[in-house]
């Protein structure tokens, strides 16, 4: 009698487990094209990072959520700014959802962590933000760096500082973090190659909000080349002014948007920065895109550069699908992506054989237009391979 009861319990347990397992079983049939999005829906970056999804939706709305006779599905996943979470999310996207491409992430360390996992399945990965060469090296030809590498981006800030602005000495400041270092190297190497001198390097820990100890000892030079993560910008600018420092500032890669600059206030006006996109790019493609985005939000949308990145990443992917005539097996898509060349709001985009993005690089200035802090374009470097010459 007793044993019947116990086995009864056991059977119940098994049923529960089966139920769990079945509910997580891989769902849809292979027909729809599945785009996986890996961004920060929680964690520090979640205030503006997931706007890529809005941009992706804009593009998909444009094409009616289908291409080459197949429907398209968008599957967002959260990496929480944490590599461990990113790996788990990617495993779900690859094993359970069986996505055809993964767009994202933004963080460098997350991208590095997921690269080996994606290499195993050769899932194409389009990354809409600066990265390091390590991502390509860890991949299996499936990594596509749409916006290139950190050093590749910051490179032009160094070139511009010396050639166009005539700065000869610089203080370099960056968050003590691999990304920061890469941005700093990107600025420093071309600057020094041309004859400039870096008189001091300052490295506050990541997450510093009180820059006082660092600002009191800072030397004076022609320019301050800095990279700190966007949340730290408001206190930095305030304190910079409080301590009476007057050097012009070059933000070696502007990863901040209007929403953040409003927290800084007018202190940021005049800062020169490097970036890949500005809503003021003077092409028809871009103007149309901006109009489209404005219509959806009824006014200038937030975090435009991330929206555009999402939009462009999807655009590039859809081009590849077209070229592969709707065949979304990983190898076909990878081949197609390597050959793609398409016009996007940020200019013409293509990839080198190793997966490095080829496009424009801009030097911009932060200016106030209609009450918003926008990137005014000072110079465009046309159709460059978005990595530094030494990478």
């Amino acid at each position, binding site marked *: 009698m007793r044993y019947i009861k116990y086995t009864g319990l056991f059977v119940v347990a098994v049923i529960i487990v089966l139920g769990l397992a079945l509910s997580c079983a891989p769902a849809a049939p292979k027909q729809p094209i599945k785009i996986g999005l890996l961004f920060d829906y929680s*964690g*520090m970056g*979640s*205030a503006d990072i997931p706007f890529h999804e809005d941009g992706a939706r804009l593009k998909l709305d444009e094409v009616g959520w289908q291409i080459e006779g197949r429907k398209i599905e968008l599957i967002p996943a959260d990496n929480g700014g944490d590599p461990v979470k990113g790996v788990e999310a990617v495993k779900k996207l690859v094993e359970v959802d069986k996505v055809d491409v993964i767009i994202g992430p933004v963080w460098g360390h997350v991208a590095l962590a997921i690269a080996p996992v994606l290499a195993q399945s050769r899932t194409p990965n389009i990354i809409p933000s600066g990265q390091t060469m390590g991502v390509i090296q860890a991949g299996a030809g499936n990594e596509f760096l749409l916006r290139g590498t950190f050093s590749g981006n910051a490179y032009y800030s160094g070139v511009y500082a010396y050639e166009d602005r005539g700065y000869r000495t610089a203080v370099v400041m960056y968050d*003590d973090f691999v990304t920061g270092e890469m941005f700093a190297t990107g600025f420093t190497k071309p600057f020094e190659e041309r004859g400039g001198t870096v008189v001091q390097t*300052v*490295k*506050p*820990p990541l997450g510093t*909000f*009180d820059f*006082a*100890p*660092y600002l*009191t*000892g800072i030397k004076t030079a022609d320019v301050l080349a800095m990279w700190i993560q966007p*949340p*730290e910008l*408001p*206190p930095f600018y*305030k*304190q910079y002014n*409080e*301590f*009476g420092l007057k050097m012009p500032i070059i933000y070696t890669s502007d990863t901040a948007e209007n929403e*953040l600059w409003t*927290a800084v206030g007018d202190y940021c006006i005049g800062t020169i920065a490097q970036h890949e996109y500005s809503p003021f790019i003077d092409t028809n493609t871009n103007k149309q895109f901006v109009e489209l985005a404005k219509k959806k939000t009824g006014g200038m949308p937030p975090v435009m550069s991330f929206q555009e990145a999402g939009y462009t990443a999807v655009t590039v992917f859809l081009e590849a699908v077209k070229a592969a005539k709707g065949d979304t097996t990983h190898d076909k898509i990878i081949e197609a992506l390597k050959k793609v060349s398409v016009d996007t709001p940020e200019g013409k985009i293509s990839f080198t054989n190793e997966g490095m993005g080829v496009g424009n690089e801009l030097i911009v200035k932060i200016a106030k237009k209609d009450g918003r802090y926008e990137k005014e374009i000072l110079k465009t470097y046309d159709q460059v391979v978005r990595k530094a010459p030494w990478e």
Partner: protein
Amino acid sequence: METILLNVLNGITFGIMLFLIASGLAVIYGFMGVLNLAHGVFYILGAYFGLAALAYGVPFVWAALVGGIAVGLVGLVVELVFLKRLHKQLNEQVLLTLGFVYIFANLARWIWGPYAKVIDAPAIVSGSINIGSASFPVYRLVIIAAGLALAAGLWLFTEKTRTGSVIRAGMDDKEMTTGLGVNYGLVSSAVFFTGTFVGGVAGFIGLPIIPVYPGMVFDILLLALIVIVVGGVGRIEGTLLGAVVIGLIDSLGKAYFPDFAYFTMYLAMIIILLVKPSGLLGRGK
């Protein structure tokens, strides 16, 4: 020469900020023996409530008080509804207060966003003074004054008034205090309110220097704990001394040994504790 002076001033300012952060926790732990792990949360809530008041046009000083009182009330609710029932149950206290940290930090994020809020100091005390050829923000000096005022106030209260003596007695021996006819419950609630009030006000007046964002709750808690342990539990002077010492070590460390910026505080704490286990001015275990 003036760089050294500036660094020392920075150190002292940071130290006083630490004192402001830690004093609320020190009071609560000293009297009630409750380690309020949610202290960081009250700190940022004070800032947020104060900011809300500012948005309604309330002047700076009043906004600080509003922030503090609002937080104090929240703390009171937590204490009355939850903590009272968990007397001496350390496990449950830890779980509960940590649970509140997660909850409130996430709520704060939901309402106010994850980005740091920064404000300018009130007009009369904004701006910088000149020290040699460098500038130093006036507000930081104001903070030093405010912190010292708070320390003096708390000291006078606990050393010189009757309620103060009750609190001090409670810090040393709870049972006796109850035995003497003191309404322990009322006093402990009042202490909790005061502790969280101070924490909230600190959060708000620190805004021009230390911006506030939901992710900082554990960092604030950690700083407060370090200060209390280094300074020694049971005396306000201890907390103040501990705070200034840590502040100086941290700032000077960052300025002169930047590669060790992460370590200096922890190393200092470990060394001090090894040499004097009950803290610099502690009353012994």
